[in-house]
């Protein structure tokens, strides 16, 4: 095997050739085939580290193959194929290249055996993905992209700082499980936390993802945050702090998702909440919990991707993703509605869908460890997910009050991608054994017990009933045009106001100092002018007698001083 071979290389090489492939069906096919080439590079290899070499005394490993990297690698590859199908209609070369580089970077990071390789591809995901936001080509998307880039590059800079500290501390850059406790590991966790959208580090996602293009948002939803989950599972399994962070993550976005009018932003909050489940799984750290987190990450790539695709299809056909403008779309977009409902059922963990077989593992892991607060918090977060994404989102888009829009059904490529993704969501739910066989730990788990199936059906049905009654009685927030303040208020308004005030203060001081210096100079010049000006005392022609008097006085004073 060539020394520098990694699945990322297939994507990068393919990206360079994109401009030479004719636009249209041929290019669409080309973009869908590239991830297959990536799979061929790693699939079937026996576990181990391939393509390792030494650089300045550091051991670099481009391709570590084990169950965890293969699982995420496979999920990313399949998702990249589906994203390519979804974007079949697209003729924008920049987005096509950016998508390949972004997916390739994510693949490179997943297979990285060392932290330097991880860092390179970590930054690669940031740089490539911002073009999917800028490709919208508006003033707002440019600003959102810049904010996104600053945060993402910041995450990379913090990561490299952590790597340097770790190298000084241990003399190794191997990407293995770390113990939280030293400045190095705290720094690395902070870097991962930014990409993972930990609470207070999360707003870049809700700001940037809805600002991207129709297809860009779908692609963005697949890679960055799941890569961060992979990094947590690899680097910090069993770190107790993650349990508390995960619970906060799972719970706090619920209210925002219920308030938001922009359906793409509803989905980013929903995604944020689902990431919380995975972070809790990583924090619990038992083999079942790790399996649950990994399984939920993979399931989430597909059902969350499917939801983003369906809302993207609505945006593509109607020009808006605002709930206030939609409603009643089931009439003319029934296939998109069905696919959206499959995604909604999956996120609601309805039996026979992917969410049921993945989310339940994390809750069971909490149950087996007798972590009641964790278990009840995740149960509440599950109810929130059913409410805001399982019910409210399809209700507002496809049912609810009729917005009067009668758009055409989504184009063929989008329907094919949504159909295949929906089939995958159901296949995972129907055949959990085949899915579980891909998970990193060999832990027996049976999701379809009588108890589990009945209680989950009860949960979904009663929440649906509560939703129906709440809509009727006005117990849910109305969809209204507007925005919901989040932590971006800190840097978009508060920090901006503080910096503006400091700027005005400095400008005022500068102006005042300038005035003071100018008036001092004026005053000095006035005195000189007063003394030496045309009418000043020193400019006058003095009479000879007066001059003799002054000279005599000075001589007299000299005599006195000399003899005293």
């Amino acid at each position: 095997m060539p020394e520098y071979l990694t699945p990322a290389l297939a994507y990068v090489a393919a990206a360079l050739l994109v401009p030479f492939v004719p636009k249209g069906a041929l290019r669409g096919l080309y973009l869908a085939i590239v991830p297959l080439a990536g799979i061929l590079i790693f699939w079937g290899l026996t576990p181990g580290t391939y393509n390792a070499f030494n650089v300045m005394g550091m051991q670099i490993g481009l391709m570590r193959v084990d169950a965890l990297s293969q699982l995420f690698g496979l999920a990313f590859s399949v998702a990249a194929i589906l994203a390519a199908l979804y974007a079949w209609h697209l003729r924008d070369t920049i987005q096509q290249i950016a998508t390949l580089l972004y997916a390739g970077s994510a693949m490179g990071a997943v297979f990285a055996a060392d932290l330097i390789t991880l860092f390179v591809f970590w930054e690669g995901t940031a740089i490539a993905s911002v073009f999917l936001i800028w490709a919208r080509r508006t003033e707002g998307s440019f600003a959102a992209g810049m904010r996104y880039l600053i945060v993402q590059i910041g995450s990379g800079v913090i990561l490299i700082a952590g790597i340097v500290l770790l190298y000084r501390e241990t003399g190794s850059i191997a990407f293995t499980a770390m113990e939280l406790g030293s400045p190095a590991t705290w720094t690395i966790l902070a870097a991962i936390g930014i990409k993972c959208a930990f609470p207070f580090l999360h707003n870049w996602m809700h700001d940037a993802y809805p600002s991207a293009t129709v297809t860009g948002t779908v692609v963005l939803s697949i890679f960055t945050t799941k890569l961060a989950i992979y990094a947590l599972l690899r680097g910090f399994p069993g770190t107790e702090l993650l349990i508390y962070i995960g619970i906060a993550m799972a719970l706090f976005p619920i209210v925002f998702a219920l308030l938001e009018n922009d359906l793409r932003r509803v989905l980013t909050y929903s995604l944020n909440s689902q990431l919380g489940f995975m972070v809790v799984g990583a924090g619990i750290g038992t083999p079942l919990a790790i399996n649950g987190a990994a399984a939920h990450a993979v399931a989430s790539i597909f059902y969350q991707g499917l939801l983003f695709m369906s809302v993207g299809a609505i945006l593509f056909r109607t020009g808006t993703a605002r709930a206030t403008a939609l409603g009643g779309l089931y009439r003319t977009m029934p296939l998109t509605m069905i696919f959206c409902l499959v995604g909604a059922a999956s996120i609601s963990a309805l039996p026979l869908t992917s969410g049921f077989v993945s989310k339940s593992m994390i809750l069971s892991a909490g149950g087996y460890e007798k972590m009641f607060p964790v278990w009840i918090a995740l149960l509440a977060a599950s109810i929130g997910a059913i409410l805001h994404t399982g019910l409210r989102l399809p209700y507002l888009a496809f049912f609810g009050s009729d917005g009067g829009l009668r758009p055409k059904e989504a184009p063929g490529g989008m329907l094919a991608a949504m159909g295949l993704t929906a089939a995958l969501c159901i296949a995972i739910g129907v055949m959990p054994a085949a899915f579980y066989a891909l998970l990193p730990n060999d832990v027996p788990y049976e999701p379809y017990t009588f108890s589990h199936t009945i209680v989950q059906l009860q949960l979904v049905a009663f929440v649906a009933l509560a939703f129906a009654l709440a809509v009727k009685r006005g117990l849910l927030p109305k969809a209204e045009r507007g925005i919901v303040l989040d932590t971006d208020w800190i840097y978009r308004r508060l920090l901006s106001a503080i910096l503006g005030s400091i700027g005005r203060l400095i400008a005022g001081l500068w102006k005042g100092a300038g005035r003071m210096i100018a008036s001092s100079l004026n005053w000095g010049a006035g005195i000189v002018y007063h003394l030496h000006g045309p009418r000043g005392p020193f400019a006058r022609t003095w009479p000879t007698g007066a001059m003799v008097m002054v000279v005599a006085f000075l001589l007299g004073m000299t005599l006195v001083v000399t003899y005293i």
Partner: protein
Amino acid sequence: MTGSPETQSKSMPGSILLGIDTARGGRIVTWCLLLICAGLAAAGFTGHLHGYFEIEELPAFYGWFGFLVAIGLGIAAKIIGIFLKRKEDYYGAGSTNLEEHPASDLGMEASDA
């Protein structure tokens, strides 16, 4: 692309669901849900439900817990919304909240039906 409900054609692809978004349709859905909930709550008594905690032994725990938390979350969101909701122009011009999605990225077409 717009049209009034009166002009809706039966030939629309999703016509099988026509009426589901009316008040009558809403009532039918609610009653169906009520029946399903009752059925599932009854089904819970047909066998022993194994749980991890004592609270799960309570009758139809998942049902009423889900119902109450859902209503609670809705009300909480309504209250929090009073403090957090702002107009779309809050962050000024140059924000995607205000912009319409560019037509070059869209494929807006009306339904033929």
